[in-house]
């Protein structure tokens, strides 16, 4: 059994590597401690040794492992900090800028209209149960994350992507997907009755398919608008 699901994002591997790094440190610490815990149980002694550990020489048995632990702590922190900054703080120039809105109980997707800019009047909002979010492969996707009613959390395990969606705030996040395919988008913040059903998809497509999808979307949108106008 694999440890993680496949990774299809540019930064996912760094998160996985961090896991293995920490795993090495904690496994060593665990093994040493468990051995130190079990050995005395199997050594029968009539009379216990008397040492209180109040002397500095005794304390070296605690100080030495603690120093090692502190060093591992700092290695972990040094290793992880660059990744954190790259994922959370340094948002790259957007190739595609889209919006995700959480509502009870569906993910709503917002595409920029023909002007290719989000938050303008020609934005197209797709709010269909279990719909797909289409993005092009190997492009910087920047997302505005919002929520309508309660808290939700956008979770895309294959991208190692997770961000809470908060009513009243717009949070900007980004990713770049490296492999075309259809993947699950989960909601991992309890958001009421149908939280378990709040599942949509991420469709990663190559450039051409993505263009085709967009033009179809524009067309549908046009038709919709026209029918609204004519029914007035």
């Amino acid at each position, binding site marked *: 059994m694999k440890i993680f699901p496949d990774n299809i994002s540019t930064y996912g591997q760094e998160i996985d590597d961090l896991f293995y790094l920490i795993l090495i440190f904690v496994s060593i610490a665990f093994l040493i401690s468990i051995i130190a815990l079990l050995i005395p149980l199997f050594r029968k002694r009539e009379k216990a040794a008397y040492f209180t*550990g109040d002397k500095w020489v005794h304390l070296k*048995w605690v100080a030495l492992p603690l120093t090692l632990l502190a060093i591992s702590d700092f290695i972990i922190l040094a290793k992880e900090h660059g990744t954190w900054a790259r994922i959370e703080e340094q948002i790259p120039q957007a190739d595609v800028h889209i919006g995700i809105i959480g509502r009870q109980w569906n993910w709503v997707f917002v595409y920029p209209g023909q002007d290719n800019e989000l938050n303008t009047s020609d934005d197209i909002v797709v709010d269909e149960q279990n719909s797909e979010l289409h993005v092009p492969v190997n492009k910087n996707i920047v997302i505005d994350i919002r929520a309508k009613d309660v808290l939700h959390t956008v979770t895309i395990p294959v991208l190692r992507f997770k961000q809470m969606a908060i009513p009243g705030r717009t949070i900007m996040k980004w990713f770049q997907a490296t492999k075309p395919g259809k993947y699950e988008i989960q909601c991992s913040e309890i958001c009421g009755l149908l939280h378990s059903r709040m599942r949509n998809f991420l469709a990663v497509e190559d450039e051409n398919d993505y263009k085709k999808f967009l033009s179809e979307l524009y067309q549908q949108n046009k038709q919709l608008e026209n029918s609204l106008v004519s029914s007035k």
Partner: protein
Amino acid sequence: MNHTKQNFWTKYVFATDHKVIGKQYIITGLIMALVGGYLSYVFRMQLAYPGQSIPLYGDMGPQQYNAFITLHGMIMFFWFAMPILLAGFGNLFIPLMIGTDDMAFPTVNMISFWIFFVSTIVLMVSFFLPGGAAAGGWTMYPPLSITAHQPTFWGSFFTGQTFLLLAVALEFVSMLMGGINFLTTTINKRAPGMTAFRLPIYVWFANLAGIIFMFSVGPLIAGAFMMLLDINMGTGFYDPYRGGDPILFQHLFWFFGHPEVYVLLLPSLGVTAEIISTFSRKPIFAYKTIIYMALIASVLSVIVWAHHQFISGIDPRMATFFSVGTILISIPFAAIILSYLATLWGGSIRLKMPMIWTIAGIGSFLIGGLTGLFLGSDTFDIYAHDTYFVIAHFHYVLIPVVIFGTFAAIYYWYPKYFGRMLNEKIGKIHFWLTFLSFHAFAFPLFFSGLQGEHRRIADYSSFDSLMTLPIQHIRIISTIATIILISSQLLLIINVFWSYRKGKVAGRNPWEANTLEWQTDSPPQHGNFEVYPEVYRGAYEYSLPDRTEDFYPQNEK
């Protein structure tokens, strides 16, 4: 000592004797543990066999699922762990360990218990309210916790969420009164000669836990009060469309919620210290260092709260601060655990039931503590947050700390309070069933978490990626283990009742321990000691080289 005559009511119900009050807390706590355990049985069955009728419950929908996980978390923390480890054991042990007759304020003590008891009733009533029990998770994050319940009659007051908040408030009042009582008692009522650095570690840690609780609970009470107003008066503290902010509650909640774990951890580590020293026949290693480390850990514990919010919209640069703080807490706690390991080293180990629980507790807690490093790292938390990796991690902290710690204490101190020993044979079976089924329940959850299984999902069938075979098997294994884990507790109940009648008579000091509670009758009479003790040495003088006996009670000249 002059003690007035007692009738049934003043002796067993409205008692002011700390020993009776301690037992009242523990019995109430254990009953609530069964309630919390039953809830976990029901929702684990739902996870393993979604949509099927559950034996001893019936059909479960998503609303009940959400309510049951919410109440499971709440009950386990506030109606099981706190009342037993802090209020229960604190009442039973502190006055005896410091060599006095009772708490500083016995009547306040009695009132504290009854406020706690009322909180239990209010909580249980919340299950049966028209809208159903609270169902927004034990973290109660708004806006969900505010809007989840549509008012049904008499406004919105009679809703699960309001009653949950009221119950929590009552519980906190009770624990606050108790904590103040502990501190006053420890400061003012110590036997002559009982200096600060001769106190048993349990007394130190229980008081420290009380202080952390008092320090951290204020913001949560304020936060809960604003939530009550939001629900019942329509104010908008947490509503962004009226100028409020849902994140505000998260900060107030975790400013309390993170230290709360240390409020449970410390008393349990105190119990561990008493037992490990007595059963290795050795002084506890580096007593003073342990206490200083606990002080450092307590201070750190209140400044790392936002590590629960790495992915919930805090300033990403702030996350670094909280990540560093969290990971550095590993150092003082490692120091305490290492001191315990050094205490065992070179000891003449007596593997009696209390010691077995303690060793198993330390060994299992290591897994919980070390997996905290993964989550303390803000970067890995992007992936792990709200998955079953977290569930596995905190159950690896809480079950060794709360459940194993409680059982160790019950086996160790039962003879003191009931005059008879618990049966070791039943004890061993109880131990192995509990120990093995705990690991079988919790360990596999690390793997399903890493596979991306997110928590608080009543039914995974919407997610193809989470319906694959290894994960399905993990759900079933974990559920079967839960059933074994819960049903083996029957053995403890049998043991407690059987030994009460038929157990070996204990005598004053069956474990040959040093601390003062062992130097009086078992059970101690009302007023605790015939002759009030005077203290001549520290609590852990075992195996002194120039003595024939390997123990040296604190009050022996």
